[in-house]
């Protein structure tokens, strides 16, 4: 019997075939004999029994011993296949999975983490499983692997995705209201692509706001959407300032969503339950700064984001540098070097003015360039009304540094 396998399927599928095959033979045999007897010895044809046999020692021995041998063989193959699932191949890549009601988080050695399980195709992966609340189950049907996730204990599974592709991951152990929504995927990438993905990672999975990243990391988004759609809990879209009916005990109250309410709803979710929803949310113990960041995001704050967006990159991406130089030379538009805080002559509403290029001016001339045009230049710049506040702040900060 082989003891090391390259894939889990290779270890498990033959056992299925063996047991199903033997069972099918037995079932068809029993059914055929039964149907034959019923037809052959039906009362209209066989009005009296032609035998009074009430046992036969040899037959009984045969049909005790043969099935015993058969089931022992099944037991043995079953056990051998199971061992293959338990013995992780050398050199498997480790990923730490955290399950919570009702979402997944996968963390990689390099510090990257996310809600999908990205893996390199063709390489054995070991997934360490922990739960922060109740029992969950980690199940990938495509690879025949499953393991319960038990609070207070680390279980593991291993598998190899031989081909790149997307494979379902289900929560297999019942965990409450969102159980059937606790699904995600294995994304198996070609090895090089995976390496690139892992490197690009430190930034997190593109979550713009640190509060949003936290909401994702703590699994909040498993039950609350950010786009207004209804999941297990109310959506976060436009939640700040919303008037909501909550049930505290037996009574209904109308509250306005504010900081105090949100804090309580996160830390003691069952104190006030939003009407129409089950009291299904687990309480969270969070650090003060985490809580503030989350609430900041829910309030619609943007300040916190500034450092994350790099003004120069943005200027490059938006194409600003095609017309504005950074070295003081003249282009289609004035240079950006030393622009911030300098005195410039502009035409505004047909009048020539001398003004200071402060934050307010710069902001306006990015959003609505046609309104104030620097003397000596054509009003050709396209407006950028869609820059978010965060992006605008990043750009202004960068311009300031360019002085």
């Amino acid at each position, binding site marked *: 019997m082989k003891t090391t396998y390259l894939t889990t399927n290779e270890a498990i599928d033959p056992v299925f075939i063996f047991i199903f095959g033997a069972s099918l033979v037995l079932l068809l045999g029993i059914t055929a004999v039964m149907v034959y007897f019923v037809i052959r010895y039906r009362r209209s044809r066989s009005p009296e029994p032609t*035998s009074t046999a009430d*046992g036969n020692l040899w037959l009984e021995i045969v*049909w005790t011993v043969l099935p015993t041998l058969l089931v022992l063989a099944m037991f043995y*193959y079953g056990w051998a296949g199971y061992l293959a699932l338990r013995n992780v191949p050398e050199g498997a890549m480790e990923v730490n999975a955290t399950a919570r009601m009702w979402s997944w988080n996968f963390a990689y050695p390099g510090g990257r983490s996310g809600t999908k399980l990205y893996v390199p195709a063709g390489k054995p992966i070991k997934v360490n499983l922990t739960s922060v609340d109740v029992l969950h189950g980690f199940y990938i049907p495509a690879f025949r692997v499953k393991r319960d996730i*038990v609070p207070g204990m680390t279980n593991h599974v291993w598998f190899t995705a031989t081909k790149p592709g997307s494979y379902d991951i289900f929560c297999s152990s019942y965990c409450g209201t969102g159980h059937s929504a606790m699904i995600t995927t294995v994304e198996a990438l070609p090895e090089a692509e995976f390496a690139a993905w892992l490197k690009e990672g430190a930034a997190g999975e593109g979550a713009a706001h640190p509060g949003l990243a936290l909401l994702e990391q703590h699994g909040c988004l498993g039950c609350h959407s950010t786009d207004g759609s209804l999941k297990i809990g109310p959506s976060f879209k436009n939640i700040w300032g919303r008037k909501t009916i909550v049930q505290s005990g037996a009574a209904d109250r109308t509250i306005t969503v504010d900081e105090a309410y949100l804090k309580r709803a996160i830390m003691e979710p069952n104190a006030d339950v939003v009407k129409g929803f089950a009291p299904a949310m687990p309480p969270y113990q969070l650090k003060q700064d985490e809580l503030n960041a989350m609430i900041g995001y829910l309030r619609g704050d943007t300040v916190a984001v500034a450092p994350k967006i790099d003004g120069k990159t943005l200027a490059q991406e938006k194409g600003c540098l095609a017309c504005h130089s950074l070295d003081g030379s003249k282009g289609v538009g004035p240079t950006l070097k030393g622009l911030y805080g300098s005195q410039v002559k502009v035409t505004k509403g047909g009048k020539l003015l001398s003004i200071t290029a402060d934050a307010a001016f710069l902001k306006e001339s990015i959003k609505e360039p046609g309104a104030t045009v620097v003397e000596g230049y054509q009003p050709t710049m396209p407006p950028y009304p869609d820059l978010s506040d965060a992006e605008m702040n990043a750009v202004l900060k960068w311009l300031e540094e360019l002085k």
Partner: protein
Amino acid sequence: MSITLQEQPTTDRGFWNDTGKTGIGSWIFSTDHKRIGLLYFYSVLGFFLVGVVLGLLLRLELMAPGRDLMSAQTYNALFTVHGVVMIFLFIIPGIPGAFGNMVMPIQIGAADVSFPRLNLFSWWLYVIGTVLVLLSLFTGGGAPDTGWTFYVPFSARTGTNVSLALFGVFILGFSSILTGLNFVTTIHRLRAEGMTWSRIPLFTWSLYATAWVQILATPILGITLVLVIAERMLGTGLFDAARGGDPIMFQHLFWIYSHPAVYIMILPAMGIISEIIPVFSRKPIFGYKMIAFSSLAIAAAGSLVWGHHMFTSGMSDTAVLVFSFLTFIVAIPSAIKVFNWVSTLYRGSISLDPPMLFALTFILLFSIGGLTGLILGAAATDVHVHDTYFVVGHFHYVMFGGTGFAFFAAMHYWLPKFYGRTYKTRPAVIAWGLMFVGFNLLYFSMKVLGMQGMPRRYYDYLPEFANLNMVATVGSWILAIGLVLMLVNLFKGLFKGAPFTGNPWGGATLEWSTPTPPPTLNFITEPVVTHGPYDYTALKHDVREADSGVTP
């Protein structure tokens, strides 16, 4: 003990009116095992129907992906209540409570069970437990949503009314224990003269084996449930890893009862099949001793295999090895029974009356359920299908296709005896056909879905599972139509149908030698047993005697 008929003259209606009492009080406070058996019968049948309606609602929700008619929370409560009702209110008390009570004392030639008042008390405990379970659905935080397995830590945390439901099940456990005690004592002490151990009918043998499991295993369930209540109310932390407890320990305790409980469910059903097959083949059962012995073997060895429900739980690999091995060993006696039943047909004179039709169907469906159990017993394959629809398919084949169909067989076999009227054959056969087709559409689809990876207890599923779910739901409708037809035909027959007298199928067990319906004390003269339960040559002699008016 000598049995002579009391003051009241025997009438045609036997125990229905020979005591002169017919009001409701004469039923719910009766100590007559036949009346108690009927009380159980109507209670468990009622809850079976409740469970079926809940099951149909589950299927309706799963008809198509997405939300069809209820929320996730409602769905979760529904499958929990469906499971609890079917397991604790229908299938565990079902056959022993209803047919065990009605038939077993007569089969061994007794006038009643050993402790008739305790017997009545068991039924009352069943009623009280049931009321508590039902109350839990409508009070407190609402219907429990834990699944019938009540796994911690979820069951310790959820805000729904789990504690009251657990307490109800705790009470139901006492009912089961007391029935077991009563049956063991009765079978030991009250057998008629000549009813040696090797002449005990196999149905009674199966109840005997079952009764020991009820007595020995049920207390563990009781303790476990109380511990969960303590966890919820007092925060004892026994199952909480953060406080030194262990959630997996709960699973061990739960299955130490609940695996043997599947033998409480299936053994009496096997007993029924062992009665019906020989009667309708007019041939002695093949391997009487082996069947009786295998019931005891299953009951004993079945107590040691509970861990096969936990192969993926994180328990040690050594435990997986041992439990997988023992599970395969317990499979053998069940296989032996199937071979014995089929061999009984050989060179018989087979008549496909409705009881026989249901009994033969039992053999087929139970075999499918049992063979898929081998997949679950082998550690490697269990990992893939554990907690999927494969398991849901498997246990419905065993519990519904097995015990459920045996229950229907028993209804068609014994109820006419107790009512003195009978049903029409043709509608019963049509109903059987519908149920057979519907059943397989419903549950075979589930097995395939499980192989494809659809987890159980899923309110919603991915589009790739849509087609088979639709097939299963349509199957559930066909099954339900068959069920309604079967019940309507049966009850119309029992209340208004043609008279049923004597021993039309030619059974050789004692219940076929008493008047129909049996009098309150069962026998007019104390029976003396001179032959085995499946000795049909001796029967011909008795029947001739009966014709000459010696026994009615």
